[in-house]
């Protein structure tokens, strides 16, 4: 912390030669001219408390916009009196996931089982209704909670399907193999938007007359199938990386195909590709706002709705920054997590 150290650090890292010095000074100048005015706008001159747009001072950010619309941004048009149901579902989810970090490895598979098979039912009943709970139709679902619901649904839908597709791609049976390859390549070759359009607009025409599957469910399944193709590719990578000895050992023990894959191969393969899987799920999370294009309003959609309310015109920047912070926070957190996993795995190998 002494002066000499700082001087040394500056010399090595910023002013090592003449062109580095020029670049450093230039960049510093730009940063110093931007950051203060940004802080000024976002914090010092900003208005945090109020009820209407007129409470906001000119020249600063109007965070009142966020606080007034906060409930809508998080829950959409979900009825006020029923909000506890959404909250409860998410509290159960968070508790379950955090508990996984503290229990013994033996119990972890049960937690996974709970998350994939039991929790979706609990969550669905809580949020949608049934068993004495009032029905809340999907049309009023929205906001950040919908973003999370879709992401969660996408993961638990895409994961098992992706595993099956990955196994199928390596199958010895030609029909199954080529079907899985074609299936995966098809979904990976088209943009998600066309899938959403197909789910929202085209799919109902393909069902028997007068059957009606909920639009949100159609879209969610579309997203799930789309992501399963990417999951399959990641898991296939894991399967390929396994040494052949693993298969031979399992076979020599007389295991059947399914027993071999589910007890020996997949657990190892999936473990090595957890970083890749997490990246796929980050991509899924970042893709959920696309449902705006078929008229479903998750977080970004709610901001778009709020900013075009005639009492709140001109609030786009504040809204987008809020959305950006939330998405950035979760994506960054997860990507750091994958990076740490990658490091851990690479050290385990060596």
């Amino acid at each position: 912390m002494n002066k000499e150290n700082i001087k040394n650090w500056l010399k090595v890292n910023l002013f090592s030669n003449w062109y580095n010095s020029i670049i450093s000074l230039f960049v510093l100048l730009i940063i110093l001219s931007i950051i203060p005015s940004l802080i000024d706008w976002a914090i010092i001159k900003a208005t945090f408390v109020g009820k209407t747009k007129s409470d906001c001072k000119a020249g600063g950010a109007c965070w009142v916009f966020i606080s007034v619309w906060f409930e809508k941004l998080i829950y959409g048009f979900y009825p006020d009196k029923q909000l506890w149901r959404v909250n409860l579902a998410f509290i159960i989810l968070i508790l379950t996931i955090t508990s996984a970090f503290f229990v013994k490895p033996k119990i972890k598979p049960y937690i996974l089982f709970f998350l994939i098979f039991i929790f979706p039912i609990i969550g669905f009943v809580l949020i949608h209704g049934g068993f004495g709970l009032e029905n809340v139709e999907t049309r009023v679902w929205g906001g950040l909670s919908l973003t999370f619901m879709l992401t969660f649904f996408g993961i638990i839908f895409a994961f098992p399907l992706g595993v099956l597709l990955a196994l199928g791609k390596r199958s010895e049976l030609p029909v199954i193999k080529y079907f899985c390859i074609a299936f995966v390549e098809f979904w990976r070759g088209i943009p998600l938007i066309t899938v959403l359009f197909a789910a929202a607009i085209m799919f109902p025409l393909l069902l028997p007359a007068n059957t009606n599957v909920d639009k949100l469910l159609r879209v969610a399944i579309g997203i799930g199938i789309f992501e399963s193709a990417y999951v399959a590719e990641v898991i296939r990578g894991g399967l390929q990386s396994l040494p052949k000895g693993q298969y031979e050992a399992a076979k020599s023990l007389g295991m059947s195909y399914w027993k071999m894959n589910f007890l020996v191969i997949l657990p190892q393969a999936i473990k090595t590709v957890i970083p890749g899987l997490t990246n796929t799920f980050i991509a899924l999370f970042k893709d959920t706002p696309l449902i705006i294009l078929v008229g479903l309003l998750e977080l970004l959609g709610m901001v778009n709705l709020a900013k075009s309310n005639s009492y709140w015109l001109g609030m786009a920047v504040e809204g987008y920054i809020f959305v950006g912070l939330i998405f950035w926070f979760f994506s960054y957190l997860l990507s750091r997590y994958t990076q740490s996993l990658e490091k851990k795995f690479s050290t385990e190998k060596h």
Partner: protein
Amino acid sequence: MFLSSGFKTSLKKNLQLSNLIPQLLLIFIFIFIIYFFANNAQINMKARNMTSGFDFLGTNSGFDIQFSLVDYDGSSSYGRAYLVGLLNTLLVAFFGIFFATILGFIIGVSRLSTNWIINKLSLVYVELFRNLPLILQIFFWYFTVLRSLPSTEKSLIIFNFLIINLQGFYIPKFIFTNSHYIFYGIVFSLLTIILIKYYANKIFYEHAKVVPVFRISLFLIVLFPLVFSLIGGVTINIEYPKLIKNFGIFNYLGGIKLIPEFLALVFSLSLYTSAFIAENVRAGILAINKGQKEAAKSLGLNNSQSLNLIIIPQALRVIIPPTTNQYLNLTKNSSLAAAIGYPDLTGAFAGTALSQTGKAIEIIFIVMMTYLTISLLISLVLNWYNKKIALVER
């Protein structure tokens, strides 16, 4: 003996019923689903008096499109509208890829800079842009940045070249006469460069002498088109955008116009994708171990030689495959155009044309197949390239 009996059982196994059943089952289920959907579609359309088929592609569309690379107006057919959309998609993808590559390489190299501030700044850049949803970035550029530009009569004019206002960016248009001569010049210079490259290789292997092919090529690619255009009498006219006033409405006419929807899309696609490319570039350079650089030095190669001959070729081998994947993603992501009304394949064809005709099945099918074809073409090129560099590896 043991081996052959093992082989026999495996052959037997393949023909076993237990292996045939799942395959037949899959075929059966697949056919059933297709039949189920097709049948329902037919019944539904019949019940609603809807016709199916692609005849509508030949009929007049009746709507205009704001931005098109080929002649198009409302009296053109829906097939033409498809072409307009496809070309607009390719245009955005082309410019997106171009800028994403440049930005990605700059940021990727900066990530390894010894200059602390450059290093950290490029880290912030990468983490910022790749962790935000692309559609949010598009909205941000379109609804906040480009919407806060000045109006037409108060346009920003930069060096009398670039005119910036809320309705778009305008640049002068260069109109060439006899422009085919420039093309001949480029073709001729390319042929010469290939020839020189061939002999340079020969000289390198036989006499161990390095010919500065890159510099010669750079010189030739400028020289020949210039010479050819002088011979062919090529002239250049510059058409500047002109401010026209119609009552109180101002408008720039002439020149090349870039609409805000296009700009927002190109900005966000290139920024978003460049963050991913930067990571590929960084990984590619890091993948070459220090030994390679030191070996190059010990061979007596100077800095630029070792960069050109040793480091870049090897780094590219690592960088190119994942980067091509990013190009593919960028092309697919350009379909987000629909969110801000840029008339691409999704916006103009799967959007406007679909709602004017109601041909949901046909149009979505066409659009999906188009994207699929583009994707498969790009991955074919990628596979071909991968094979090629694998061969070089020996």
